[in-house]
């Protein structure tokens, strides 16, 4: 009698501790689904935070560059030369030059104290020069293409971008400003 009881207990314990193939496969499937969901969420989170960080960084850099350019161009004495990629103004009797290099994608400012990089990762940047007389019924001015020294207003437009995880996420920032030279 005692032997029979012992035998029954041992058999039932063995059945509890083991897993069948079906149980194992279901467990693996559920585990796989959970892991896949966690992996997707992690990738999505990393990419999202990266994109948000890129946008904030781009806006910060662009705002700084625009503030600095606006301040100095407004205060300049007049335009010396202007092309699509380069603007030279007279600033306190010295040349102040803004140069955009499409190969290095960098905008630099050159003055007597040296060259400073204002923008990096700049895909496109354009300087345009306008005269002082406005066009009737619009907010536009006549372009100063023939006599650059007659330039009163500078328009600058640029687009900067950053990539994240190769080229999967591309964040862009477009800035545009019209700057009127006060002394001209």
């Amino acid at each position, binding site marked *: 009698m005692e032997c029979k009881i012992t035998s029954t*207990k041992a058999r039932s314990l063995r059945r509890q501790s083991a897993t069948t193939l079906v149980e194992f496969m279901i467990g693996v499937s559920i585990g796989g689904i959970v892991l896949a969901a966690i992996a997707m969420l992690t990738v999505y989170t990393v990419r999202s935070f990266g994109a948000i960080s890129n*946008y904030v960084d781009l806006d910060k850099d662009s705002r700084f560059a625009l503030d600095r350019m606006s301040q100095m161009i407004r205060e300049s004495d007049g335009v010396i030369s202007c092309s699509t990629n380069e603007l030279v103004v007279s600033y306190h009797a010295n040349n102040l030059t803004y140069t955009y290099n499409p190969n290095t994608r960098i905008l630099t400012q050159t003055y007597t104290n040296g060259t400073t990089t204002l923008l990096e990762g700049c895909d*496109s940047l354009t300087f345009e020069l306008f005269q002082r007389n406005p066009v009737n*019924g619009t907010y536009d*001015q006549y372009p100063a293409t023939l006599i650059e020294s007659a330039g009163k207003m500078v328009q600058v437009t640029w687009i900067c971008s950053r990539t994240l995880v190769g080229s999967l996420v591309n964040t862009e920032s477009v800035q545009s400003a019209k700057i*009127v030279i006060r002394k001209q």
Partner: protein
Amino acid sequence: MHLTKKRANKISSYAFTLMEMLVSVAIIGILFVSFYVGIASGFGVVNLARENLRANQIALEKMETIRLYTWEQINSNGFIPPTFTAPFHPPVAGETNNTNSSFVYYGNVTIENAPVASAYSNNMRLVTVTVLWTNSGTARTRSMQTLVSEHGMQNYIY
């Protein structure tokens, strides 16, 4: 009989009940949704900051050009258009892959008598530039004001 009861107790202590599973699934679900909502909210805040920045740029552009008008043009009805539109993503020379969604800002410019209680108030005007747009179904607006004076405007055009 005694042994059977003991075994049954052992089994129940190892397994999860349906209620436990439901609670854990609900907690995990709430966590996932919270993550997603948090990130989406972060994108929304950054997007609104970018739109604000662009709206300020547009208003500032109009304010800058106000300096180029004469006193007569400021007071001439229709010389300065009362309304304007501007894209969020302005056209950039050399840009080949402009895939950004570009909505339009609507703006208006009002020129009124200056709210100055003084003898020279007739020689001044109050210029207000207002920019309006919609963000996620919510109407947004930014505005800038400046005072211009007759003898502070440029007085020649060539």
